[in-house]
């Protein structure tokens, strides 16, 4: 049993910590958000220089390799700085399933260009009516000669604003909620018939809704085996959740630190408000919520690539429940203890609150994962 960081992880932590400390302060972030893309391409280039865009990608494709635990170290730092660049979409949701199931040709074509910082990716899986149900896929892939014609709609595709390639799920078989018959396709952004509506999310990240109208892709665009895409998608989403858990821990830690600082410096009635026992105890509870969340985020990263999908699902869902609840409690209590300032745009606290709230809405909320965990128990 050993909870200490590996050498690689310590280096990653130092590198990313220094980067965000020097270049991703709250004011830097504001400027980045106000820019034309809503995120910073130069920052992305720096990620590439530092090797961050090679994490989790095999060395044969120019990557650094690395486990979900390694990515979690980056996620946590990014959570502390509320990084908005599409790292989760490109690396975890995009490069991840390509690495898991992609053909050699697909991997060779895409992954080195991800590592170099040249490409953004996005997973276009969720649909307007799918909510959090992974097997709910209405988008159809009709065989047409040697090609497929994709028709349907995809909703709230994270990083979909910037993606150069989409990993699109579509049915080659089966009815709406059948677990079988779902295939995953690699689709370039510029393909005819693909309409993209990009937008910001309320937490500063970005997404897009897609409409596919007979989008033609060759058979070689199938990622993995046709009709058997769901296990890859489920694994990918579990990895993404592990990433989000670590990111949330970073955000909670930063928000707790801000709140504690506020308790010590804000004075009312002639004393720091941290002298009031009710606020003291609440702050203690927030720290406990953080520690419980951190424990479960560690577990989720550890199990995200567990060979037994059942074990993986249990651990990841349990973690997502814990993160949802801790994040909600910390976010709400932090705002309350800050008073009005806590919900102003110009103060960082409220932005952590927003991010934590939306993480709970992403890939299944606490209720969803409590039910998934209970069903898997």
């Amino acid at each position, binding site marked *: 049993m050993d909870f200490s960081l590996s050498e690689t992880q310590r280096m990653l932590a130092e590198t990313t910590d220094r980067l965000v400390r020097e270049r991703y302060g709250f004011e830097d972030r504001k400027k980045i958000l106000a820019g034309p893309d809503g995120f910073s391409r130069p920052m992305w280039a720096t990620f590439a220089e530092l090797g961050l865009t090679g994490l989790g990608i095999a060395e044969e494709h120019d990557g650094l390799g690395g486990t979900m635990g390694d990515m979690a170290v980056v996620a946590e730092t990014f959570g502390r700085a509320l990084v908005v660049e599409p790292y989760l979409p490109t690396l975890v949701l995009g490069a991840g399933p390509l690495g898991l199931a992609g053909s050699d040709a697909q991997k060779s074509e895409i992954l080195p260009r991800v590592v170099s910082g040249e490409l953004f990716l996005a997973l276009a899986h*969720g649909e*307007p*009516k799918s*909510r*959090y*149900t992974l097997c*709910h896929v209405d988008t159809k892939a009709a065989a047409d000669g040697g090609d497929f014609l994709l028709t349907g709609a995809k*909703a*709230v595709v994270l990083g979909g604003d910037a993606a150069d390639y989409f990993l699109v799920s579509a049915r080659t078989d089966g009815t*709406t*909620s059948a677990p079988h018959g779902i295939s995953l396709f690699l689709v370039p952004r510029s393909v005819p018939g693909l309409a993209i*509506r990009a*937008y*910001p*999310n*309320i*937490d500063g*990240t970005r*997404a897009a*809704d897609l409409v596919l109208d007979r989008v033609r892709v060759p058979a070689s665009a199938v990622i993995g085996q046709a009709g058997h895409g769901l296990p890859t998608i489920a694994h990918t989403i579990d990895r993404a959740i592990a990433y989000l858990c670590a990111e949330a821990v970073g955000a909670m830690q930063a928000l707790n630190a801000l709140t504690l600082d506020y308790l010590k410096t804000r*004075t*009312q*009635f*002639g004393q720091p*408000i941290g002298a*009031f026992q*009710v*606020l003291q105890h609440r702050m203690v509870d927030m720290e406990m919520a953080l520690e419980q969340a951190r424990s479960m985020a560690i577990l989720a990263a550890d199990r995200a690539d567990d060979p037994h999908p059942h074990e993986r699902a249990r651990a990841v869902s349990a973690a997502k429940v814990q993160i949802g609840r801790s994040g909600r409690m910390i976010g*709400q209590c932090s*705002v*309350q203890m800050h*008073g*009005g300032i*806590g*919900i*102003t*745009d*110009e103060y960082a606290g*409220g*932005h952590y*609150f*927003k991010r934590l*709230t*939306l993480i709970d*809405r*992403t890939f299944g*909320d606490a*209720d969803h994962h409590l*039910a998934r965990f209970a069903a898997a128990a």
Partner: protein
Amino acid sequence: MDLKYSDEERAFADEVRAFARAELDPAVRDRVLNHKRLGKEDFLGWHRKLHSRGWVAPNWPTTYGGCGWNAVNRYIHEEVLAEEGAPPLVAFGVNMIGPVLIAFGSDAQKQYYLPRILSGEDWWCQGFSEPGSGSDLASLRTKAVLDGDHWVVTGQKTWTTLAQHANLIFCLVRTDASVKKQEGITMLLIDMNTPGVTVRPIITIDGEHEVNEVFFDDVRVPKENIVGEPGKGWTYAKFLLSHERSGIARVGQAKRELRRLKEIAAAEMVDGVPLIETKTFREKIAAVEIDLMALELTNLRMIAAEKSGQAPGAEANMLKIKGSEVQQNLTELLMEAVGPYALPFNPDALEPGWNGEPIGPEYAAPLAGTYFNYRKVSIYGGSNEIQRNILSKSLLGL
């Protein structure tokens, strides 16, 4: 004991409801129900309709153009209008400075200001909170010095709701630094157009502009714009806050939001089943509905006590706390109901007359923002922690 309204009360509720349905601009109603942005004219148009019916000021005596209603009718009026989707009455004139002027204002002030409040000609805002004085209001530092016929005011107010629409502000200012902090405070009425008054928007995390900072830089205020006597501002403020309590639990609004929540949960599907029919979500709705039923009855019990002559006391603080919990619970469930569609940020969709293509279901756009915004309701008007401090002292003697 009789938990039902009397025939007269029921008839009155029907009358209010009929009035709202006949007179409320459907576009405005739609904006209220769907959490879209309300413009100044949305508030004022409705205000004028209430005025023409004589229903602007339920809590004022008839002498001053008010309704002179008892507590039950005031409650019915407010709750029914809220349920029907009427814009909230802008409280600063009618419910806040109005009663203060009636009780403590000079005859000239009453004659000048009260009719203009009723007609909607003046829009008041409130200058109490300061950056350094939130829960500890009495520590405020904006100061006013008498210079001939004028008070010269310098300082800063914050969290000033809808100051961008207001032409008048009632302010607490420090006029004597040598006495106990509560005793050196004076209440002034200030024209927002006076040179030296600057309004700066505060944008909240939902991207909205509702509150402001107001700066006073050597602002000259005519001497007669004082309310009552110098140094009595704290007394007037406490009087004002105790009169802000009608409808403090916001039961009508909560009922409206509960209805909306049920509609949305019926439209959202989970694995082919409406969200409202899934056990977990249905029971979450049920839990808040029960909370609201209890709150409404508790409110009615207190209203009935008030009607029978007992002054509203500590109970108002309870209604504030429970009311804020119910409201926040509802906004949170509304956000939860739309699942991933809580993420997109589309402030344009909140603009009156916006005709664009919604992202996801049309009702989704305001929900996350409203949830974030509504964290304020357990903060403003004395945070829930302050309410509990008060109750601990006044109700429990601790």
